[in-house]
């Protein structure tokens, strides 16, 4: 949390003014009981009406000044808290943008999203409350006690005893219920989980006729929740009644003490009233303080979580300057490259070694988990090799600034993701300055012209988040078009035609081979048909190259390849 406070810079003024004015407000509030005491002891006792009026005017003025102070404090608190969280959010978002695939894999995107949203809201709220209340509440509690001592030492001991007892009850109950509430939250999460699960799996659940069992399961989860809620409810239900009883018994004791002191002539009637009023003020503030402490602990916990994200530094850094071009016939070279992910023990790729000439089409094939995606991810330097090197245009990928490297490469990832906005907006991810003609051409090359034609507003048609209003195949074709808009030197299709039928897939490959600037193309696939006509085919098996060459060569010399091929074209070889 501490390191986050750097972002408070620029709000120092607000952070001083806000609590200060809150303190002032509290002072005026504490003085009111004394004015009342004066009205009773001096005004009424002496039948001095002008005095009473004067005191009342002063009371009204105090009220007004208190209001002004409070408003000033609230304004600066809001400004500082929101300003702070805005700054933190900005840096956090910027920081996340710098993280590499490795860090994103380890952290998980859902955690990052919670950090950015609900955690940040908690922090903002915590800062705001702290600025507003942290000085005020203790000040009123202890201020009231101090005032009581000024009025009468003897009677004030009641305060000294009551405050710790009340604190014990308030904090005791709050602290003991926190873990219980966490448990309740856990049970609620389970209820939520079952609900979501049943919606997502509705087809499977109904197919297996499990509705009744699911209902039973849900009811037992809500029962557990219900029991936990009632239990914690019983404890927290103690708070108000207990504090109420304690406070009123304390008031009785206080007045009894006061009565004795008045009888002895050490205290006046008005002063007893003043003590009584002071006592009443304590409880409200004590509860506020306890609530505040809970909010602050929560905010600090959130703050620490956010800070831990800041502490993760990107393991990948691009070069600062664009390297000089090298004369080379090769587009991509792997020299004995090995990749081991941080999260796994075994290397995912081992001793990969090959050279691809500019303009060649490369097919990469292999079973699930054989390392196909890992291999193409190394070209864009989404991960760094653990050993060996990867070169693009004859230069080690580590010697490029990341932007320069990735501008050369058009990637179509396995998961076809589109973003909220028009089709045009999405296509411009590939190239900000692309003209409508460029985009239409790319869409045509990606075999998506008919999809575009079916949309009412053409390029301006709206795509929902994640491209939900498109089918899987339509999404894939648009993601391919998006990469083509870039006119990349290297085009990587990572199993990106899986949702396309064979006819469309074939048409797509044929149109890609006709692209004017003839990029180097990598096609990752599980289908032999998609890659059998490539210039080079790399066969991967369990992270190693099992074979490399042309279709016919591999069919002869590579068992893994011929097995895959035969499984798909059994019996009837064309």
């Amino acid at each position, binding site marked *: 949390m501490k390191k986050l406070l750097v972002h408070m810079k620029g709000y120092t003024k607000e952070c001083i003014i806000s609590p200060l004015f809150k303190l002032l407000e509290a002072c005026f509030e504490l003085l*009111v009981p004394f004015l*009342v005491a004066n009205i*009773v002891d001096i*005004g*009424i006792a002496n039948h001095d009406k002008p005095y*009473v009026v004067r005191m*009342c005017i002063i009371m009204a003025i105090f*009220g007004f000044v208190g209001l002004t102070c*409070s408003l000033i404090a609230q304004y600066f608190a*809001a400004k500082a808290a*929101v*300003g702070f969280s*805005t700054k933190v*959010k900005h840096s956090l*978002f*910027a920081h996340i943008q*710098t993280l590499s695939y490795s860090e994103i894999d380890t952290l998980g995107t859902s955690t990052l*999203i919670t950090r950015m949203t609900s955690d940040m809201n908690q922090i*903002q709220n915590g800062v705001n409350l702290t600025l507003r209340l942290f000085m005020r509440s203790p000040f009123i509690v202890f201020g009231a006690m101090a005032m009581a001592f000024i009025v009468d030492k003897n009677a004030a001991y009641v305060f000294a005893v009551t405050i710790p007892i009340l604190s014990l009850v308030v904090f005791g109950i709050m602290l003991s219920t926190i873990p219980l509430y966490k448990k309740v939250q856990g049970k609620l999460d389970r209820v*939520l989980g*079952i609900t*979501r699960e*049943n919606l997502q799996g509705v*087809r*499977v659940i*109904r197919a*297996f*006729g499990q*509705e009744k069992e*699911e*209902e039973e399961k849900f009811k037992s989860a809500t029962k557990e929740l219900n029991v936990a809620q009632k239990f914690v*409810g019983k404890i927290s*239900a103690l708070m108000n*009644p207990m504090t109420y009883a304690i406070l*009123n*018994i304390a008031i*009785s004791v206080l*007045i009894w003490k006061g*009565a*004795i002191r008045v*009888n002895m002539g050490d205290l006046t*009637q008005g002063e007893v009233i003043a003590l009584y009023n002071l006592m009443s003020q304590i409880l409200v503030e004590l509860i506020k303080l306890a609530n505040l402490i809970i909010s602050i602990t929560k905010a600090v916990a959130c703050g620490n979580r956010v800070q831990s994200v800041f502490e993760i530094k990107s393991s990948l850094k691009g070069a600062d300057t664009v390297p000089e071009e090298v004369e080379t016939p090769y587009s991509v070279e792997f020299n004995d490259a090995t990749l081991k992910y941080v999260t796994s023990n075994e290397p995912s790729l081992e001793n990969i070694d090959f050279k691809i000439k500019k303009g060649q089409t490369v097919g990469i094939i*292999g079973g699930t*988990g*054989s390392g196909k995606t890992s291999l193409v991810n190394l070209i864009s330097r989404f991960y760094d090799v653990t050993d060996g090197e990867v070169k693009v245009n004859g230069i080690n990928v580590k010697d490029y600034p990341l*932007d320069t490297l*990735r501008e050369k*490469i058009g990637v179509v990832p396995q998961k076809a993701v589109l973003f909220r906005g028009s089709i045009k907006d999405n296509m411009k991810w*590939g190239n900000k300055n692309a003209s409508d003609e460029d985009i239409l051409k790319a869409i045509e090359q990606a075999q998506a012209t008919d999809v575009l034609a079916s949309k009412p507003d053409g390029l301006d048609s709206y795509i929902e*988040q994640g491209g939900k209003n498109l*089918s899987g195949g339509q999404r894939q074709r648009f993601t391919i078009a998006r990469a083509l808009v870039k006119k990349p030197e290297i085009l990587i299709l990572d199993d990106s035609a899986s949702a396309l039928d*064979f*006819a*469309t*897939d*074939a048409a797509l490959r*044929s149109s890609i*081979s006709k692209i004017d600037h003839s990029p180097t193309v990598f096609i990752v696939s599980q289908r032999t048909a998609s890659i059998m006509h490539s210039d080079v085919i790399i066969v991967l098996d369990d992270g190693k190259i099992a074979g490399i060459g042309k279709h016919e060569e591999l069919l002869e010399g590579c068992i893994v390849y011929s097995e895959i091929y035969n*499984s*798909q074209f059994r019996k009837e070889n064309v």
Partner: protein
Amino acid sequence: MKAKKSKKNNVKASTLKQVLHYVKSYRLLLALSIIFSTVSVALTLYIPIIIGKAIDLIIGKDNVMLDAVLELLVNAGIIALIIGILQWIINNINNKITYNVIKKVRDEAFEKIEKLPLKYIDSNSYGETVNKVINDVDQFADGLLMGFTQFFTGIVTILGTLVFMLTISIKITAIVVVLTPLSLFVASFIAKNTYKLFHTQSKTRAEQTALIDEMISNQKVVKAFAHEDEAMEEFDEINNRLQKCSVKAIFFSSLVNPTTRFINSLVYTAVALFGAFIVINNGEAVLSIGALSCILSYATQYAKPFNEISGIISELQNALACASRIFEFINEDSEIPEKSDAIVLNDAQGNIDIENVSFSYTEEQRLIENFNLKAKKGQRIAIVGPTGCGKTTFINLLMRFYDVNSGSISVDGNDIRDMTRNSLRKSYGMVLQDTWIRNGTVKENIAIGMPDATNEEIIAAAKSSHAHSFIKRLPNGYDTVLTENGSILSQGQKQLLCIARIMLCLPPMLILDEATSSIDTRTEIKIQEAFAKLMKGRTSFIVAHRLSTIREADLILVMNNGQIIEQGTHDSLLDKKGFYYKLYNSQFESI
């Protein structure tokens, strides 16, 4: 306008009626809670009077009736204790009612989920429904029941205070009654004006969350396209807008407390002023000092519920809105009820007859029309066609996830609408392309169709679906807990698990929708063999892209745009040189 309002009132009335329905079984407890609250409020108001009396007896040096004071104070202490106990009981009763109602409403909502037509589930976002079952129910019960008790004690407090004040001094009461509503006006004035600010704030916040959600969950794409700067720009633009409206919303809403506090202090001052004047003018016989101090404390107590009530009312309104959403959901139409004499389909033979079926999801867009098909026991029917041709819809109809618009589907000569849904669906073994893994152990996942299966049966099913070898390697084998839709498994492994489910139940008919699309080819060969064994004697429907799996089917349906455009065996379709021929050959076309 008037009609609109009355309609709104109708909704409110019916919502309230339904709320009462849930609370009905707690009417005794509720009555007890109301009685105790009334007593507790009355006693709470009585304490300042006792204290006031005691203060009246404390006049000056050697002028204090210590015995009488002590008696009064002891009474006050005892009453305080009684109030404490009463309040604790009230709290517990209210908790019980609230939490039990929550449970009941949730359970009913869930029962509804299990009975809703697929059409509702497919066309409403999961998040929205989950939100209803979780947040809306909480807010409804909390807001409505807690709000109601608070509202009730608030009213009682106001009335009680009024009565007690009147017994002390009519004039001062008049002052309090006239001035207090001021704070109410101010509070509602502020609330009205901040509502818009809050609305803008939450809208902007939602916008920001959506952006964060989108960009961060797809961070890899953002990086692949070096889109970081643009994303940052977009984020900052929203972030700055949010900053501006948040400061305003937070500041203006925080005005409520200080301003009402200020008005209360004005009331307090006025009471002090007039009270003091009355004492001075008329002597303590009319208004004693103790009574003045008592009425001063009433003045603050009287204002409090007013300040709270404005909050409670908005909470109640919100709760009512939540309640109407959740009730609307609970009252949603269920699937068409089964006939009372519905047939239970046992040991289906698998003769399926589809006659003249037409179906569409929406009226505007026709999909399947005049669909005819006869599938005999043990036949293997493959469905091929380009993406979006209607294959999934066909499955929806077979499983009766959706009902046909016209025509009929029958199994073994009986219309499927005359059967229990449960028995029809259980007769099919369905594996979908979109795998769904539940939260739970691997074992529970396989045994979903047969929860009382033995370990041996489960392992045997896993072996025949070739899932055994990877399950063995999981950290806890068959007891490994899978979460978040099986995130520790690869797509292919998930498909193997789904296949194991039907290997366990061995239902008489099969639907395989791209069931092996993510499984690597070598494993797939083995599974195909297992499937081939399984399909013997079982009518099966197979959707696949891979034509090699389709070739061996008894009947191939070629679909396009919701129509069956060709049907026949592999060879006869190739001879026809039509759509299928083109589709098949595109597999081998060179690039």
